[in-house]
């Protein structure tokens, strides 16, 4: 089982080496939990019954003057722990972004790209700024996970999942993951997932109530459960958004919505392997 959406922001061994990480986490990412040793992350995975987690950085040097983990730091974490799959992040506003992405994948061994339009200050459909990065990702054969939906950073317009439609059309071989299921635009997300084979969405959303209440609100109230069970079972990936939410709580919440074991197996494991290119899709 894989958590497709985690941030290693509060790992104290890394913050001790780079105190700027803590400032960026608090002031740009708006997360203010206590720092925890790397061991806590591992134990959280164990308690949750998960084997691996994808760890995500954000390169927001142009827009916010910081990086929430560099690609090198992500690669270092992956060397320290075999339980992590590292994604890269590049700043689309910098001309060398495609080259940096190629270096992160080919030299550092990172497996995907994370983008956050509102935090990085770009529009996903911007052909001049964003498209060169998508072209590089498509050429490298890696998936792109894009923050969509509710954001604590200014600029909610750029994170409407509908912004991804042109990208999905123009890059049919590029696997795009809509983060946070695009909440509150969950109908738009569902429509895009139905329409485009190369689009996926992760479950890492919790903005009010308890995880199981929020999960039921999306899968069962806003969207019929049968939609996920019958039509989207190959398009949804489990994600927690740890450490904004503990992994164990999101696992429990998703298990409680009433999906079949077959759908859960796809969402917790097989779909992630498919997006990572380790397994054929169906």
């Amino acid at each position: 089982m894989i958590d497709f959406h985690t941030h290693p922001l509060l790992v104290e061994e890394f913050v001790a080496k780079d105190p700027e990480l803590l400032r960026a986490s608090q002031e740009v990412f708006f997360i203010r939990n206590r720092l925890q040793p790397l061991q806590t992350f591992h134990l959280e995975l164990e308690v949750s019954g998960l084997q691996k987690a994808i760890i995500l950085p954000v390169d927001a040097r142009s827009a916010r003057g910081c990086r929430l983990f560099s690609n090198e730091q992500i690669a270092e974490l992956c060397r320290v722990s075999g339980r992590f799959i590292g994604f890269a992040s590049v700043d689309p506003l910098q001309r060398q972004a495609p080259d940096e992405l190629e270096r992160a994948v080919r030299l550092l061994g990172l497996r995907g790209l994370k983008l956050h339009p509102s935090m990085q200050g770009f529009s996903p459909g911007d052909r001049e700024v964003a498209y060169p990065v998508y072209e590089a990702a498509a050429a490298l054969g890696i998936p792109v996970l894009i923050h969509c939906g509710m954001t604590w950073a200014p600029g909610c317009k750029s994170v409407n999942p509908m912004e991804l439609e042109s990208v999905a059309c123009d890059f049919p071989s590029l696997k795009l993951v809509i983060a946070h299921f695009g909440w509150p635009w969950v109908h738009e997300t569902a429509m895009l997932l139905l329409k485009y084979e190369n689009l996926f969405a992760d479950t890492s959303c919790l903005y009010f109530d308890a995880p199981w209440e929020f999960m039921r609100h999306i899968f069962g109230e806003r969207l019929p459960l049968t939609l996920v069970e019958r039509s989207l079972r190959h398009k949804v990936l489990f994600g927690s958004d740890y450490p904004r939410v503990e992994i164990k709580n999101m696992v429990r919440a998703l298990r409680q919505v009433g999906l079949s074991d077959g759908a859960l197996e796809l969402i917790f494991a097989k779909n992630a392997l498919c997006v990572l290119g380790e397994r054929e899709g169906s």
Partner: protein
Amino acid sequence: MIVRTVRLVVQSRKEQELIDITPAVEQVIAESGVQEGLVSVFTMHTSSGIIVTEGLPCLEEDIIAHLSKLCPSEGDYLHRRYLSIDGRVGFNADAHLKSVLGGISASFPVVSGRLLKGSRQRIYFAEYDGPLSREYVVQVMGK
């Protein structure tokens, strides 16, 4: 008078568990030089506690189970809202309530430089929202 205050770290490994910290408290007393006085133990977190009970695994489980019945995780809590102080939704009200019910501190006499306690009493750090790295304070006062 001697006052020695030590902050200690404990790593919980489960979502909820009682961790015996008696040896750590005894060590702080031994290193303090206090012969006659008082030792107090406090947790630094509002979703954990300090509990004194008999050192039996069955009781450890019973205490966690009983507190969970009194404070069910699926209860209807106002705490489940976005908390800007943390940058996240608070949904661990049950852990906070367990901390209130179980208590956050314990005190024992120090006599002849040693912890004076009942032969079956153990001091536990109570984790209600783990696994996490946690801090607690041991303060020894006396002469």
